[in-house]
């Protein structure tokens, strides 16, 4: 009862510095958690997204660009794949599934991707997860100008079943380049938290034969998403397309290409982590500075407590406990900062990539980081606590007679 009372009163007496210090810890805690959780979740989300397909076949060029374009619906297509090449890989005995896609149009900046219905009926977008349509909708008819809209686009553009739209040419929105073809929305995809949510899906023939597109490319596809029957097939086709051939690129295995991407941008993680650690260090120092700076003002109170019988270890413990409470306040507020920061970052990532991050996703760091902040706060209290421990009682019980 005594120690909590002493700590509570001391915190109240120094309310402003308590709040400022707790806020700096909250910022550090929130930043650390956000950096950590975004890193962990983006990596796992991107890797999960790539589990649907083993490889991507596309025009000769960068494997990473091919994967980003075909699977994450980012970047431009490096070129086209001829109908013959598509048919060849589709019929290859080692290939289980080959889904063609064609890109080149948008609707108010949202990418339009032409594909076949089998993408939605024959493939799981993640382990154990199949595409689903919001009730009242259906898949597009490959023979008609119909569209299925990803959940994120549907929400952003307020598209619903029955709406019609005219695509715009190119991947970037240009109001002067609208096609005459009119498409009708016949279905909305249920949220998948994958890049598919950011796409308007139409029949592949629609993109290939869109008015204004090059007629010579009417049978070509932008890329082919491939599932192999066995991993060995990937290595075999890797040799065939990448080493022996010179027209096409097989991006295989997709997972390691994405892992390479993360390793290439790993320095950014490290910079962010270092910044977060520095903020944490500054926060710990601020606990030390704020309590230490008030020690002169507290000396008399400490001497009075000692004159009442409080032992040195009691005043030492009171200062440590006060620092730990500041750390705790900061850690709790840090969780709120994390929710806010993470929500903002997750919103940007979702809008840019379609990958959804979950703020309540469990990871040990969600517990360890706040605990670390409490420990850091307590650690920051050690020096002032030592000063309190050494406070001479008689000298501070002025005046003397």
């Amino acid at each position, binding site marked *: 009862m005594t120690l909590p*009372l002493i700590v509570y*009163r001391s915190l109240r007496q120094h309310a402003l510095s308590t709040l400022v210090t707790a806020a700096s810890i909250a910022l550090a805690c929130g930043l650390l958690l956000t950096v950590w959780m975004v890193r962990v979740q983006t990596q796992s989300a991107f890797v999960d997204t790539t589990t649907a397909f083993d490889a991507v076949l596309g025009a000769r060029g960068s494997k990473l660009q091919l994967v980003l374009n075909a699977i994450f619906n980012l970047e431009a297509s490096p070129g086209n794949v001829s109908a013959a090449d598509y048919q060849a890989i589709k019929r290859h005995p080692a290939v289980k599934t080959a889904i063609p896609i064609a890109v080149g149009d948008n609707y108010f900046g949202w990418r339009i991707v032409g594909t076949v219905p089998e993408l939605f009926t024959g493939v799981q977008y993640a382990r154990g997860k199949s595409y689903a349509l919001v009730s009242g909708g259906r898949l597009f008819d490959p023979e008609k100008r119909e569209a299925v809209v990803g959940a994120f686009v549907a929400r952003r553009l307020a598209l619903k079943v029955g709406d019609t739209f005219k695509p715009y040419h190119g991947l970037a929105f240009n109001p002067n380049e609208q096609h005459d073809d009119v498409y009708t929305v016949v279905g909305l995809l249920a949220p998948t938290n994958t890049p598919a949510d950011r796409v308007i899906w139409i029949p592949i023939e629609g993109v290939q034969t869109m008015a204004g597109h090059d007629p010579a490319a009417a049978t070509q596809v932008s890329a082919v998403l491939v599932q192999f029957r066995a991993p060995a097939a990937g290595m075999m086709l890797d040799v065939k397309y990448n080493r022996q051939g010179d027209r096409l690129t097989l991006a295989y295995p997709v997972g390691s290409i994405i892992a390479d991407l993360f390793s290439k941008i790993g320095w950014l993680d490290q910079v962010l982590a270092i910044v977060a650690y520095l903020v944490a260090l500054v926060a710990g120092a601020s606990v030390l500075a704020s309590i230490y700076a008030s020690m002169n003002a507290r000396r*008399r109170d400490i001497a009075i407590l000692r*004159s*009442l019988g409080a*032992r*040195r270890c009691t005043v030492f413990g009171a200062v440590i406990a006060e620092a730990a409470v500041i750390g705790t306040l900061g850690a709790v507020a840090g969780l709120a900062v994390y929710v806010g920061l993470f929500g903002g970052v997750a919103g940007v990532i979702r809008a840019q990539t379609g990958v959804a991050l979950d703020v309540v996703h469990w990871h040990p760091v969600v517990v360890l980081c706040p605990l670390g902040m409490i420990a850091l706060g307590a650690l920051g209290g050690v020096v002032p606590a030592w000063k309190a421990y050494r406070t001479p009682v*008689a000298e501070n019980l002025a*005046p003397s*007679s």
Partner: protein
Amino acid sequence: MLSINTLCKSFVTPEGGSALIVDVCAFTLAAGEQAALRGESGSGKTTFLHLIAGILAADSGRVEIDGVNMTALGEARRDRLRAEKIGYIFQTFNLLQGFTVLENVVLGMSFGRIGADRGRARELLARVGLGHRLDHYPRQLSTGQQQRVAVARALANRPKLVLADEPTGNLDRKHAREALALIRETCRESGSALLLVSHDEEVLAQFPGALDFAAINRPPVAAATGGAA
């Protein structure tokens, strides 16, 4: 109750020398007895009381309180003994400004075996006429009221011995008389011995056997005994 033998305390001077401040050969105070010491400012009275309370460690000698040799104890055990057996009233009251009146008194009993007893703290504050100001802060009280809080706090741990260092030094005549009467009366009621030091003759006049501190503090010629109230 209180027995002092050849108690010495010296301090290092700014010049690096040593100045003997307290050199008391003998002093005793019986249980429940009330005594006063007369001394001018700077005579070492406060140091003497600090030595009795165990706030300062003596260079040599013996302070025995309720049968326990305080000077033989380590600091932690001296703190414990002070928390359990001694109440201290300061000239400047030394109330904790960030704590309420009630909390100040509660803290007076928190570090001893009795523990924090809010009921007793309320009773004591009611006894000194502050039952209606429990949640006020010291700065919200008059000087006389603050002194009464200090009295209540000093008695909170049911001390065997109450030390009062110029307890009326900051009060006007009227309040000084009231405070002194309150201290003596509450000590008497609780059976606590009282050792008061002051340079105020009006206060000392209330203690017929008041001794000059200079008489017991150097030269140590003969044992001095506290005057009975």
